[in-house]
């Protein structure tokens, strides 16, 4: 066990006015209402495991992480930790703007109680990871750009070489290069046996990073177990929540790939999706496909840098259920794509085994680790599949045979 939660309950005392707390303290009579943030949290994270926490905003994830990190104590129950803990709840919270980068690193070391040789090692690791020049590190932190600040903060936060790393959405900050670097750092710590407790809204990241996950709902563990099961259950819940929003979106009004790509494209997107199209063998109307017809997906992306990247796609039903998805990173022998300029990819589906229904495409570009989404065009290029020649029903054609039993 790296960290264990035993019957954790957390109540917050909510005072309507500050003087109520004073009166309560003086008179001893309760003058606050109780907000139950967590109730009966009971699970443990095994050593070396990467564990994901998912759930809606306000479900209690952050409270649980704070209890894990030790900044707040549970009202009831206990939490046991083993090993050095680094908590990435907020980066750079303790930095002093007047102090140099170097001194702030040392301050973080002191927060962990390090001195002497251990402090020097810590400073050396943080300096190396931050990629900031010696000259920059001599300057006060207030002169740093936000990107430099985040780099330094992340470097100082993980330089303790934690055995237990607690991460709260800290990755969604900074530029892409930095996000990627910090993700790699987390992966590296994981390789070396560190336990990671990870909270994110990015279900893609949770899926790719975590072995197990827990879905926190209304302060309780709604589901816990293998990541795929938990995330799927959570997605189903989300779909039910948003069901009313979706029914009135006819396929024809779904954004065109260009518009969708442009909408999600930031100025800093290094690999942009330029075009998504489909082509059938007869080439007549690609939005109308027959079952068992040959179909080709065409993806055009433009890379603005030399960084290697991957391209992924998914066939999606209008209710966002994935029918099938794949990515160039799943190809074992193939290196990532690379090079400035336009890249054109084609994916051929011989005898497309989809049965009647409405389908859409989602296309992603990813960094070379396959974890960081660079650009996406979701639910684009709707097409209809008609199953005119067969009477079988359902989503896809499954190979089968009827066996005659005597």
């Amino acid at each position, binding site marked *: 066990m790296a960290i264990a939660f035993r019957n954790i309950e957390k109540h*917050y005392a909510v005072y309507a006015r500050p003087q109520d707390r004073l009166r309560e303290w003086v008179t001893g009579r309760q003058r606050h209402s109780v907000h139950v943030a967590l109730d009966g949290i009971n699970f443990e994270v095994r050593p070396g495991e990467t564990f994901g926490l998912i759930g809606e905003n306000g479900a209690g994830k952050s409270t649980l992480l704070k209890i894990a990190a030790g900044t707040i104590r549970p009202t009831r129950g206990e939490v046991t930790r083993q090993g050095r803990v680094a*908590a990435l709840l907020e980066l750079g*919270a303790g930095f002093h703007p007047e102090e140099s980068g170097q001194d702030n690193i040392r301050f973080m070391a002191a927060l962990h109680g390090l001195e002497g040789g251990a402090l020097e090692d810590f400073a050396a690791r943080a300096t190396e990871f931050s990629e900031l020049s010696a000259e920059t590190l001599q300057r006060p932190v207030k002169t740093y750009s936000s990107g430099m600040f985040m780099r330094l903060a992340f470097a100082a936060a993980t330089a303790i070489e934690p055995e237990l790393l607690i991460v709260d959405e800290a990755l969604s900050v900074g530029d892409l290069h930095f996000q990627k670097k910090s993700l790699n750092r987390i992966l590296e710590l994981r390789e070396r046996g560190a336990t990671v407790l990870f909270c994110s809204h990015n279900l893609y990241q949770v899926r790719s990073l975590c072995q197990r996950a827990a879905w926190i709902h209304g302060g309780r563990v709604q589901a816990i177990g293998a990541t795929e099961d938990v995330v799927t259950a959570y997605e189903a819940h989300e779909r039910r929540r948003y069901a009313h929003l979706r029914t009135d979106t006819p396929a024809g009004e779904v954004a065109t790939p260009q518009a969708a790509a442009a909408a999600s494209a930031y100025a800093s997107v290094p690999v942009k999706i330029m075009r998504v199209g489909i082509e059938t063998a007869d080439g007549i109307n690609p939005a109308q496909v027959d079952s068992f017809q040959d179909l080709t997906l065409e993806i055009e992306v433009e890379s603005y840098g030399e960084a290697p990247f991957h391209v992924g796609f998914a066939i999606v039903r209008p209710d966002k259920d994935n029918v099938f998805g794949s990515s160039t990173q799943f190809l074992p022998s193939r290196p990532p794509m690379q090079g400035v300029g336009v890249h054109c990819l084609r994916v051929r589906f011989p005898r497309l085994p989809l049965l009647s229904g409405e389908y859409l495409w989602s296309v992603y570009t990813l960094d070379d680790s396959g974890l960081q989404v660079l650009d996406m065009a979701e639910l684009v290029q709707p097409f209809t599949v008609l199953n005119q020649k067969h009477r079988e029903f359902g989503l896809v054609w499954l190979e089968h045979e009827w066996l005659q039993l005597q």
Partner: protein
Amino acid sequence: MGLSGSDLTASQRVPSGRAQHAWVLWRYWMLREFKTRYAGSVLGLAWAVVQPLASLAIFYVLFGMVLAVRVPGLDLANGYLLHLLAGLAVWLPFTDAIGRGVGSLAAYEDFLRKQPMPAEILPAVAVGGSLLVMAIGYALLLVLSLAQGAPLRASWAWLPLLVLAQVVLTFGLTLFLSMAHFLWRDVGSFVTFALQLWFYLTPVVYPLAQVPERFHTWYLLNPVACLVLAVEWAVLGIAMPGGTLWALLAWVLVLGCGGVWFFRSMKAALGEAL
């Protein structure tokens, strides 16, 4: 776990490791406090000397020369200056620690929510930061006393105890006020005003002998006055009201224990916010 430095982990788990941790952090924070306090100023750390000297000069000119206050029972050339210095050696570090300490928890509210650390460090740093002023004050007092021909008294041996008393008393009060301010932000505004009043209720710029005799025991209700009277007695041999040292001991216990108790009982509020 197969990671380098896991021996350190083991030491962190035992209670003595916790105290060691706090001690390392406190020392580093002190260093940072002194480095950043005067950052960007030309005189830098010299301000730590200039500020008390300036206060001393102002009060000396105003009360010692213009109003010509004299200290009965102190037969030295610059008796009033020494009396004033003894008072300021106690008062300046006290007000410095309280002034910085009151807002210390509130200023790091966000940090305390995000970073596990012993919160007592913050008031302790405020008190630690006042030690420099204190050292300068006492050094000036002792050197000037000798220079003015004051005899080296046996009662000087009390000084370390009195300094310790001041540190404990100030720390206790800072613990209390910083937490109270964190919970009720009125406290900060109140303290600013109260410190001004407190200064004139403490015999710093005037000798107690100038106050009608029947009020003297009232001064024992003021912990800082007890300290000032004790220091004046120890260094300059000025008589103090009977029971001053006992009153001081009581104040040290009340404020020291009370501050720790209040801080502990309210500590749970620190990391929480809705």
